[in-house]
């Protein structure tokens, strides 16, 4: 497979207390493609995604073994600066979480944290990322209005723009369309498809139809185990493992 993959997961095991959630997961995530992690609820999809930008650090009683390499740096190495790891990944959560500030400030938030102070530079970033997220035309006249007044679909695209503004290498989506109406879901899916030209995209979903629409690469998780993974076309056409077959046919969900 792809040797140069810049996000590699090796023997990752995670447990909450004495409850194992992920068991020995190893996966090379292909660059500049959409990798979709599918599986029934409680299979560990979201945990896997959150482990990629160390959001599990703040969880009580979590035990993480194994390695995740981003550009050959193990992000769980104690010497690694956690904010730098997170800056490399943009996150879209299930329910869009805009920050309690204006639309402009939402997007400028990340760049400001990382030292961009110049107003013109910030304005340029805001415009560029809002365009990339397909939101510019709808909000260009009210950039300084509260982000909280946007519709949920617009909020999710704002979150996408906000994530892009810190110039990540990887975009993580945790069921990013589950709170959206069909129209907004389609827009977010289209944005993700467009963004894979420049970014490595990883999306968690439990909607198989969505996986079929957007996935280049599929990873199927079941009860904390990575059962099967490979190019989407191959996996959908001929799943090898009986559990994958059962999941695709709707016997387990």
């Amino acid at each position: 497979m792809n040797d140069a993959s810049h996000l590699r997961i090796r023997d990752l095991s995670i447990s909450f207390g004495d409850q194992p959630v992920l068991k020995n997961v190893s996966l090379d995530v292909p660059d500049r493609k959409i990798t979709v992690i599918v599986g029934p609820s409680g299979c560990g999809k979201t945990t896997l995604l959150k482990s990629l930008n160390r959001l599990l650090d703040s969880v009580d009683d979590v035990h993480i073994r194994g390695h995740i390499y981003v550009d050959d740096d193990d992000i769980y190495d104690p010497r690694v600066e956690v904010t730098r790891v997170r800056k490399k990944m943009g996150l879209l959560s299930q329910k869009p979480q805009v920050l309690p500030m204006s639309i402009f400030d939402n997007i400028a938030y990340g760049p400001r944290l990382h030292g961009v102070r110049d107003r013109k530079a910030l304005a340029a970033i805001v415009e560029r990322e809002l365009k990339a997220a397909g939101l510019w035309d709808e909000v260009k006249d009210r950039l300084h209005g509260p982000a909280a007044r946007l519709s949920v679909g617009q909020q999710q695209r704002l979150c996408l723009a906000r994530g892009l503004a810190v110039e990540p290498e990887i975009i993580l989506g945790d069921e990013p369309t589950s709170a959206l109406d069909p129209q907004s879901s389609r827009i977010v899916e289209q944005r993700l498809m467009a963004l894979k030209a420049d970014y490595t995209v990883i999306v968690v979903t439990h909607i198989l139809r969505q996986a079929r629409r957007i996935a280049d690469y599929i990873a199927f998780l079941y009860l904390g185990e990575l059962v099967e993974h490979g190019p989407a076309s191959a996996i959908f056409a001929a799943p090898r493992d009986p559990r994958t077959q059962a999941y695709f046919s709707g016997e387990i969900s």
Partner: protein
Amino acid sequence: MGFRRRKWEERIVRALMLVSTGLVLGSLLMILGTVIIKALPAINLDMITKTPQGGYYMGKAGGILNAILGSLYLASGATLLALLLSLPIVLSINTYSLRSKAWAVQVRFFLDVLWGVPSIVYGAFGFIVMTLLGLRASLLAGILTVALLELPIMARAMDEVIRLVPSALIDASASLGATRLETALRVVLRQSLPGILTAMLIAFGRGIGDAASVLFTAGFTDHIPTSLTQPAATLPLAIFFQLGTPFPEVRERAYASAAVLTLIILIVSLAARALSRKLRKHIIN
């Protein structure tokens, strides 16, 4: 007949709710009414523009400007100091101690215990510390003591609001590369500002109305304090002293002072509400 019984239950509960609401509203109106009616004969402009001229507590001329300003200085100072002390406590148990929930539980418990300590005990404690440090009754000693009294009230009230900040919002900020401090200051505080303001208001009201904690610590004087080391008069004590005289016209002045104190709290509450509405603009629901 289950149906009839349940219908009666509904009626009885409704009646009980009306009675208790009426009791609360009635008490409020009766307190305000008593204060205002008893205060009316004594209310005049001198009262809020002049300090006591000799013999004020025996019915001679003057006003309670010394106590009005003393109370405002004292309660504002104490509220600011309590804010400076409680913000780090509350932010730490809500954004930093996520790894050890047990610590947060303990801190909350201690704050609740402090909340329950009677204000006369704070007053006595403040007095002991004061004499140990060689301080005299002063505005500073009063501010320190009242700040201690306000601290648990403010901290717990803020804690209840900051706890409501969704953890996904904190994650969102973290995943943009913010440190915990940046997240706490720029996102958590911003989201909880209206609640923090309310917490400050509750604490301010408690602080400005408390007599026992300032009795030994702030002292009492006819002069308006011009530095932190001078003693300061306060409205609750002015009310207390005036009510304790044998002169009816001085006791009327006590009610007038109470009316002024109530009015101050009302004005501060209204101002805080107006400000809070402005701050609500960006809040995420």
